[in-house]
C-alpha cells in the first residue's frame, strides 16, 4: 500500500482562550491506496479533505490514528517523504514568483537532487505534453492561471514521485485548460509510474481520471468504491431524449419509463427509465408510436450521484 491510514483523526481548538471549542475536522479516516491507483477524494466544503491531505503530506500532525505514506511516517520523516511525493495545491504555488518558469523548474530539480539526465528527459516530456514551450522563459507571476497550473504539475512530477497529491488542481481553469491537464494526468497515471490522489469539486475531473472514489463527509469515509459500482448502486435512472418530427402529447404507458418531461412545445421529450430497462427496446417501442428525428441517451451524471450520496449521509 502506498497510503495506509488507520482511524485518522484531527481536532482543532478554535476560539479565544476563554471560549475554546474543540472542532473535529477529520473524525475517522481509514484509507488504503495501492500503488498505481487513481483515487478521487470527494466531499463537500469542510468535510475534511484538505485536513486529511495535510496529514498525509506531513504538514499537520494527526490528533490520533496513524498514517503511513510510501512506507514513511509523514511527520517524523517529512523530508524523506518530500523526495518521494509530489503535491499540487490549486490555491498556493510551489514555484518562485519572480523567476522564469524554466528556472523555477531548475531550482525544484536541484532541491530534489534529480540527476541531470533524468531531469532533462522528464522536463522535455512535460513541456511537450503540456505545450509549455511558448512560456518557459516567462516569469511565473506573468503566467495565466492555466499556464501556471501546468507548471505546478510539472514541478510536482520532476522528481518522479511515487505519489502525486492534487488538491483542487483545476479550480478556476477554463474548459480547455482543464481538459489538457486531465488528459496529461490520465496519461501519466496510465503508465503506472505514479499513484494519484485527487480532491476536487469538479466532478468531470474524477470521471476522467479516477476509477475509485472515496467520499468523505463530516470527517468520515462515507463511501469507498469503484466509480462504476457507485453509478449502478446510487445513480438510478438514465434518460432517453427523443427529438420528434412533429409535436406530440407526453408519451404515456411505455415499459420501464418512470418519468416523462415534454420540452420544446412537444418536439422533444425526456423519458427517465430504470436500470432494468434496455435502451434499445425502449427506443424501438417509442419509434413504433411516433416518428423520431434523433435520440440520445443521457447517463446519470456524477453530480447526481454525489448529490444522492451527500443527501444520504445526512440524518433525515
Amino acid at each position, binding site marked *: 500500500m502506498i497510503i495506509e491510514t488507520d482511524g485518522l483523526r484531527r481536532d*482543532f481548538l478554535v476560539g479565544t482562550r476563554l471560549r475554546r471549542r474543540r472542532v473535529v475536522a477529520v473524525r475517522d479516516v481509514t484509507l488504503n491506496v495501492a500503488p498505481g491507483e487513481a483515487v478521487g477524494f470527494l466531499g463537500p466544503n469542510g468535510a475534511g479533505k484538505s*485536513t486529511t491531505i*495535510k496529514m498525509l*503530506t*506531513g*504538514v*499537520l*500532525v494527526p490528533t490520533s490514528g496513524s498514517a503511513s505514506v510510501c512506507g514513511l511516517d509523514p*511527520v517524523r520523516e*517529512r*523530508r*524523506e*517523504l*518530500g*523526495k518521494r511525493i509530489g*503535491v499540487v*495545491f490549486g*490555491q*498556493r*504555488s*510551489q514555484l*518562485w514568483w*519572480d*523567476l522564469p518558469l524554466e*528556472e523555477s523548474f*531548475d*531550482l525544484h530539480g*536541484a*532541491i*530534489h*537532487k534529480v540527476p541531470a539526465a533524468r531531469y532533462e528527459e522528464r522536463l522535455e516530456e512535460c513541456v511537450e505534453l503540456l505545450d509549455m514551450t511558448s512560456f518557459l522563459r516567462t516569469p511565473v507571476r506573468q503566467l495565466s492561471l492555466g499556464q501556471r497550473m501546468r507548471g505546478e504539475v510539472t514541478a510536482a512530477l520532476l522528481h518522479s514521485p511515487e505519489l502525486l497529491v492534487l488538491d483542487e488542481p483545476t479550480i478556476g481553469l477554463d474548459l480547455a485548460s482543464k481538459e489538457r491537464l486531465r488528459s496529461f494526468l490520465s496519461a501519466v497515471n496510465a503508465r503506472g509510474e505514479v499513484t494519484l490522489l485527487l480532491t476536487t469539486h469538479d466532478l468531470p475531473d474524477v470521471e476522467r481520471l479516477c476509477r475509485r472514489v472515496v467520499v468523505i463527509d463530516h470527517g468520515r469515509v462515507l463511501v469507498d468504491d469503484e466509480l462504476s459500482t457507485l453509478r449502478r448502486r446510487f445513480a438510478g435512472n438514465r434518460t432517453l431524449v427523443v427529438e420528434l418530427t412533429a409535436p406530440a402529447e407526453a408519451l404515456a404507458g411505455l415499459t420501464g419509463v418512470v418519468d416523462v418531461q415534454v420540452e420544446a412545445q412537444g418536439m422533444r421529450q425526456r423519458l427517465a427509465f430504470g436500470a432494468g430497462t434496455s435502451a434499445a427496446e425502449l427506443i424501438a417501442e417509442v419509434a413504433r408510436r411516433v416518428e423520431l428525428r434523433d435520440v440520445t441517451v443521457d447517463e446519470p451524471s456524477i453530480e447526481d450521484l454525489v448529490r444522492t450520496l451527500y443527501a444520504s449521509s445526512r440524518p433525515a
Partner: protein
Amino acid sequence: MADRVYQRIVASRLRGRLAYPTSFVLDVLGQAIGQMIELIVILVLFTTVSSLGGFRPDEVMLIYGMASIAFGLAHVTAGQVEQLPEYIRTGEFDVMLLRPLNTLAQVLTADVELRRLGRLLVGACVMAWAVGHVDVEWTPLHVLIAVLAPIFGALILGSIWVATNAISFWLVDAREFANAFTYGSNFSTAYPITMFGPWLRGFMCFAVPSAFVAYFPTLALLDRPDPLGLPEALRYASPLAAAAAILVAGLIWRSGIRHYQGTGS
C-alpha cells in the same frame, strides 16, 4: 551537503533583486542613513559629555562599529525570518514543509534583501575608523578578537531574530514583539552597558546576551578591567554565549514547528 541547493536559491533571489539596480542603490543608501542616525546621536552626546559610561568617544565608536557589523551580518543572513508571519498567512510555509529541506534554512533563504547591506557598510566604516584611533595594542589575540567578535555577535543576534520571530508560530503575528528585541538590539549593543541601570544590564548580559556582541570583546581589546567588576572570563565568553543562543533559538524553532503542525489552518 544540501548547501549547493541554498547557494542556487540565494543566487536566484539575488538575480531578481539586481534586476532593478537603481532601487537597489537607493535601498542600501536608505538603510545606511538609518544606521547613521544612531551614530549621529552618539556624536551629539559627545559634544556635551567627554565620556559615556566611562568610555571615551573612540572607544564607544569601537563598540558601535563592532555591534553594527554584527547587526548587519545578522540582518543580512537571518533578517528574512521576520517574514515568517507572512509565510504562515499565505500558506507558503506549508509549501516549505513539503520540500525535502530544513524549514528554517528555507525561510532564511526565501528572499535576499540587499538593502540590509547598508547597515553593514556603516558598521565597517565606523569600525575601520575606530581601529585607527583607539589605544589598543594589536597583539595576535587582539586581532583575532576584533575579527571574530562581529561574527560571534552576528550569531547571537541572528539567534535572537530566529527565537523571537518564531513566536509567530504561537501568536498570529508576533512581529512587533520580535522587533523590540531584534531592532532593539541594534540600540542596546551599540553602547557600553555601564550606561544602563543594573536591571537592564543583567537582562542584556544573561537573558538576551547582547552584551557579548560588542561590550565584552571591547573590554578585551582595551585590556581594561570591567568598570562593573564582572568576572574577566566574560570578555572571552562570546563563543559560548553564541553557542547557547543558537541552541535556545533552535529549540524554540523546533517546538514552534511542532506547534504549527499541531495547529494548521
